[in-house]
């Protein structure tokens, strides 16, 4: 019988026990499966549990390791990919009623890589329908219902990697795979109090994964620690000629050395115009930054440059989604989506023109240069992972405040997820405190495109100085 606390241990620790044959991959998989079957439905965490596959993979891992063939740190480690990556033999629903029976006759590249590493798939994590590709208005917009936050089940996990966040936070698998077009890894990571990495655009192949916006979609890990994220990224990264936007071989790879430490002090820019003012949140971020400063990091304020980052990000997604979901829009099957916005948004988004798209992409190139210049002075930028802690699930959005003018103090604010997603930057979010309601706050590190090692190193350093990541919710 495996102690429940084992289910919340990071990969490196589990991997060492498995390698030394002090922990059985089969027993570990069975423990996660039992917990997933018991707790998962209460949280709407999974789209599908893959018990048979998990046990077959775990038994294979156990046999191989016993025979002296240890594949590496993910060998025998249970995980759950978001239900938008193709897994041969199992449904891949994209979280949406029109695709409830969808199956693919092949594995996504990321699944092939995880199979090759000997990882054990417990199930497929629930998600917001189409990963929010045609819009959504609340957390119930999912084939499997609203994902509930393990820290407070009346609250949402955020989306669209909603199940991926719940799975890790609730100890239903050691890690999960999420996708991020604009904040869909970072926000659930922050709200669920786990560690999540959105890699640089192009580092992880998306072949076999549902597309929303080809020029913005990314896949990445959600796990216990930044170190876990580095380990997973080292497995799933790499050039794939089947993904048009895959980085070239040599750049896409992510060799990860746990022991490597930056020789000089970290140069950290604290974003001053990210998110609307929120005293409690700012206090938590200030405390986190102060911890890094006491550790020797050089801290300075940083300001996101002017430019329509948010509009360009949003429009790029809307325009590309109108193309990627064209069949569904034309057939009218979008009417079967759960969310009222998703049911009609595709019709409207077909009205964008080609010159609109090209103008947005021309601005995007200019904005990429502007944000890149910020990193001349900093190794990483830091900001809150989200503008709040997890919020209650609601069936309908509340009426919008009808202000007729901008609040002056907010006019120049930028949302880090829009900026970094538009420009393909890596981001890693880790827990950095808890609210009075015992809900986690997230701190995200951003780096120059392809400098994924910088966010892993900075977040790992932060976690060596804190223990927020070691906390987990008490679930009966």
């Amino acid at each position: 019988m495996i102690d429940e606390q084992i289910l919340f241990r990071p990969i490196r620790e589990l991997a060492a026990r498995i390698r030394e044959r002090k922990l059985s991959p089969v027993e570990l998989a069975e423990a996660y499966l039992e917990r997933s079957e018991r707790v998962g439905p209460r949280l709407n965490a999974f789209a599908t549990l893959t018990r048979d596959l998990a046990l077959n993979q775990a038994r294979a891992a156990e046999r191989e390791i016993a025979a002296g063939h240890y594949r590496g740190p993910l060998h025998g480690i249970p995980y759950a990919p978001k239900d938008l990556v193709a897994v041969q033999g199992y449904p891949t629903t994209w979280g949406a009623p029109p695709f409830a029976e969808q199956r693919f006759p092949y594995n996504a590249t990321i699944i092939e890589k995880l199979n090759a590493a000997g990882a054990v798939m417990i199930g497929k994590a629930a998600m917001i329908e189409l990963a929010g590709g045609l819009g959504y208005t609340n957390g119930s917009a999912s084939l499997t219902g609203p994902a509930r936050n393990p820290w407070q089940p009346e609250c949402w996990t955020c989306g669209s990697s909603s199940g991926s966040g719940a799975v890790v936070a609730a100890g239903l698998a050691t890690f999960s795979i999420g996708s991020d077009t604009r904040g869909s890894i970072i926000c659930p990571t922050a709200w669920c109090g786990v560690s999540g990495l959105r890699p640089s655009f192009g580092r992880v192949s998306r072949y076999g994964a549902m597309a929303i916006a080809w020029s913005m979609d990314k896949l990445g890990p959600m796990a216990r620690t930044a170190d876990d994220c580095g380990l997973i990224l080292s497995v799933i990264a790499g050039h794939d000629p089947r993904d048009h936007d895959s980085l070239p071989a040599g750049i896409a790879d992510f060799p990860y050395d746990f022991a490597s430490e930056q020789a000089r002090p970290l140069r950290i820019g604290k974003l001053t115009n990210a998110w609307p003012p929120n005293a409690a949140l700012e206090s938590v971020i200030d405390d986190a930054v102060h911890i890094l400063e006491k550790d020797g990091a050089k801290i300075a304020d940083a300001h996101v440059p002017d430019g329509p980052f948010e509009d360009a990000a949003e429009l790029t997604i809307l325009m590309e989604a109108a193309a990627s979901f064209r069949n569904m829009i034309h057939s009218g099957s979008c009417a079967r989506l759960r969310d009222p916005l998703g049911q009609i948004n595709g019709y409207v988004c077909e009205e964008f023109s080609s010159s609109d798209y090209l103008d947005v992409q021309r601005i995007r190139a200019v904005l990429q240069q502007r944000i890149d210049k910020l990193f001349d002075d900093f190794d990483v930028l830091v900001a809150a992972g989200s503008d709040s802690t997890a919020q209650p699930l609601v069936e309908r959005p509340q009426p919008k405040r009808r202000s007729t003018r901008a609040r002056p103090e907010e006019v120049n604010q930028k949302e880090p997820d829009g900026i970094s997603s538009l420009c393909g930057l890596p981001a890693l979010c880790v827990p950095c405190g808890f609210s009075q309601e015992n809900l986690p706050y997230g701190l995200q590190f951003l780096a120059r495109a392809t400098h994924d090692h910088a966010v892993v190193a900075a977040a790992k350093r932060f976690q060596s100085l804190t223990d927020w990541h070691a906390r987990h919710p008490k679930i009966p």
Partner: protein
Amino acid sequence: MQEQDPESTPNAVSRRRFGRRAAFAAVAGTFASPLLDSQEGAGSFPAGDQSAVDAKYANVIRKYGDRLSPAQRVRAREILVSQQRMLKRIRDFKLENSDAPATGLRLYPSDTPERRD
């Protein structure tokens, strides 16, 4: 058809932020996004933009009107107004002739494998 006053509509559809804001709205009583809240330019929505919204709306109805309920038609117009505001801010951004788009043709190597499906 007379254009609705953009001020009177619960404007602003953000595909992904919307859900997060919706949850937030339950306790905050407001949507917190400055860009969505600001009604930026609401008082000076140019006639050309109004016309563009009208034309796009007419085209949506021409193509998909038989699929849309009256409430969905209202919502579709609101979305178009919101999108037009975003496009206006994009068009207000100064670009030079030499500013090329962040798109590009990748030349396939000859050894590109076939798709698995």
